[in-house]
């Protein structure tokens, strides 16, 4: 609503946001720009970064099959993790929403709380569980179910499991939020009209929480595609993803321009996927949920 100060001047909002704006321009705008420029520079093992303009880094990324594999692995992993998170996170959110307090609050904290614990710690947990000398392997061996040590460390499966664990709380949050908006009476209305519990779920609840699932999927996908610590620890040197590849270019090979180009491609791919996904969701749900 209007008040005097506002009618008088447009200066206050700019003054109020100036500190943040200056910091962002200096600490975000400039670094991103420098990185963008760097990605077009050349690199020589003896001379380091050569400040000329070249498209070589991008050409290398788009033609070298090594990078094709890395990018395919990363986005394949992201897709798989997203689907699994949706398949287990959405039902769990629904079950939570049907619980009574204090159980509901308790389990909500149990499931969301790990978000506040370092990714390193959570990944370490998986390393302890699924390693060759890990708990699952030794337990299964000792009760004689398997003979060989059973190893998920340094495998795609291991990476997937750990990432699902790290990211599934985000899916629960998103679905939970859309469940909160659900009018509790619609389920009863469905039942009163003779629908079975399953039909109510499929025809009444699911369509209404779909936006939550979709937005949760977007978050999980983006975070998996750019995940670093978990793939690095569980995947190791052999199963590289985009983020770990960029890291190695920067801090092992020291080919900064190539590392910067990988980062730029990752950023753009992320933004393009998120933006088109958003557009898709908006078009699909604009009419229903306005």
């Amino acid at each position: 609503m209007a008040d005097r100060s506002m009618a008088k001047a447009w200066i206050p909002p700019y003054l109020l946001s100036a500190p943040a704006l200056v910091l962002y321009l200096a600490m975000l705008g400039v670094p991103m720009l420098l990185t963008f420029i760097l990605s077009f520079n050349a690199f020589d093992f003896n001379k380091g970064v050569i400040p000329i303009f070249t498209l070589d880094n991008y050409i290398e990324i788009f033609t070298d099959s090594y990078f094709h594999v890395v990018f395919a692995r990363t986005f394949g992993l992201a897709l798989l993790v997203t689907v699994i998170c949706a398949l287990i996170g959405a039902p769990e959110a629904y079950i939570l929403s049907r619980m009574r307090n204090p159980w509901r609050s308790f389990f909500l904290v149990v499931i969301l709380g790990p978000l506040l614990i370092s990714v390193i710690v959570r990944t370490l947990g998986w390393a302890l569980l699924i390693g060759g000398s890990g708990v699952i392997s030794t337990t299964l061996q000792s009760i004689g179910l398997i003979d060989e040590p059973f190893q998920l460390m340094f495998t795609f499966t291991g990476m997937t499991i750990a990432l699902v664990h790290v990211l599934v709380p985000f899916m629960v949050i998103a679905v939970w939020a859309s469940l909160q908006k659900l009018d509790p009476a619609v389920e009863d209305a469905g039942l009163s009209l003779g629908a079975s519990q399953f039909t109510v779920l499929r025809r009444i609840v699911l369509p209404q929480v779909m936006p939550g699932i979709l937005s949760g999927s977007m978050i999980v996908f983006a975070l998996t595609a750019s995940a670093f610590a978990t793939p690095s620890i569980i995947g190791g040197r052999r199963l590289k993803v985009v983020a770990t590849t960029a890291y190695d270019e920067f801090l092992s090979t020291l080919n900064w321009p190539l590392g910067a180009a990988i980062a730029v491609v990752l950023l753009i791919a992320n933004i393009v996927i998120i933006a088109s996904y958003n557009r898709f969701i908006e078009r699909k749900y604009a009419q229903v949920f306005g």
Partner: protein
Amino acid sequence: MKTNGPLALIFHTVFVIFILAPLAIVCVVAFTDKGYLSLPTNGPSLRWFRAILENPDFIDSFWISLYLALGAATVALAIAIPASLAVVRYRFPGREGLTAFFLSPLMIPHVVLGVAFLRFFTEVGLSGTMVGLTFTHVIIVMPYALRLVLAAASGLDRDAEKAAHSLGASSFTVFRRITLPLILPGVAGGWVLAFITSFDEVTMTVFVASPSTTTLPVRMYHHIAQTIDPLLASISTVLIVVTVILMVVLDRIYGLDKILIGKN
């Protein structure tokens, strides 16, 4: 009253075990008495907790992480509060763009930010400084702080401010006595979330941390890359316990679901 069927409860149990298993195993392994990773079959031992004290590197890193998180969260809030008020109160050209810009670090993979900051620091000579590191963390935690403060500020009753004003309070008094206390839950929640996010950040920090500014998660990451030993488990256990205590406190004073999910 709606209830969950047996199938749902089984699913729920498995899900909760899946969530807690890795954390539980860390805590259990931490109590081993062996020199290698194993379950504490001979009863719990505090050997690896004592080992933490004998590793000054980890202790130093803990302090670095703590100061870093305190600094980053505080600076982020100091700039997020006025920015939120500007966005919530005024219609001005570029308002939406500004909000999107302030939230944009959420959209940028932390690896990309790490690359960008590393490049920036070598260019301007800020490499390895605590100040530089703090500002990188401010950028990372600012969106989290901003979202909570924005939610609090937009839920604010503007009439209460007008009432205070009409009773003779100056603009500054209105801010100090009415506005700030009313958005305080959002500010406190935002600060804590910013603090935790900064304390846990590893992906970006791994690029810009120097030997003298290695944070705890980064040191743990480097350590894991070499070897996984029970020391990591005991350190992780300490972190888990501290986080759980923090969580309980937060839940009491603010409601954890409010911080993590937003207003509902």
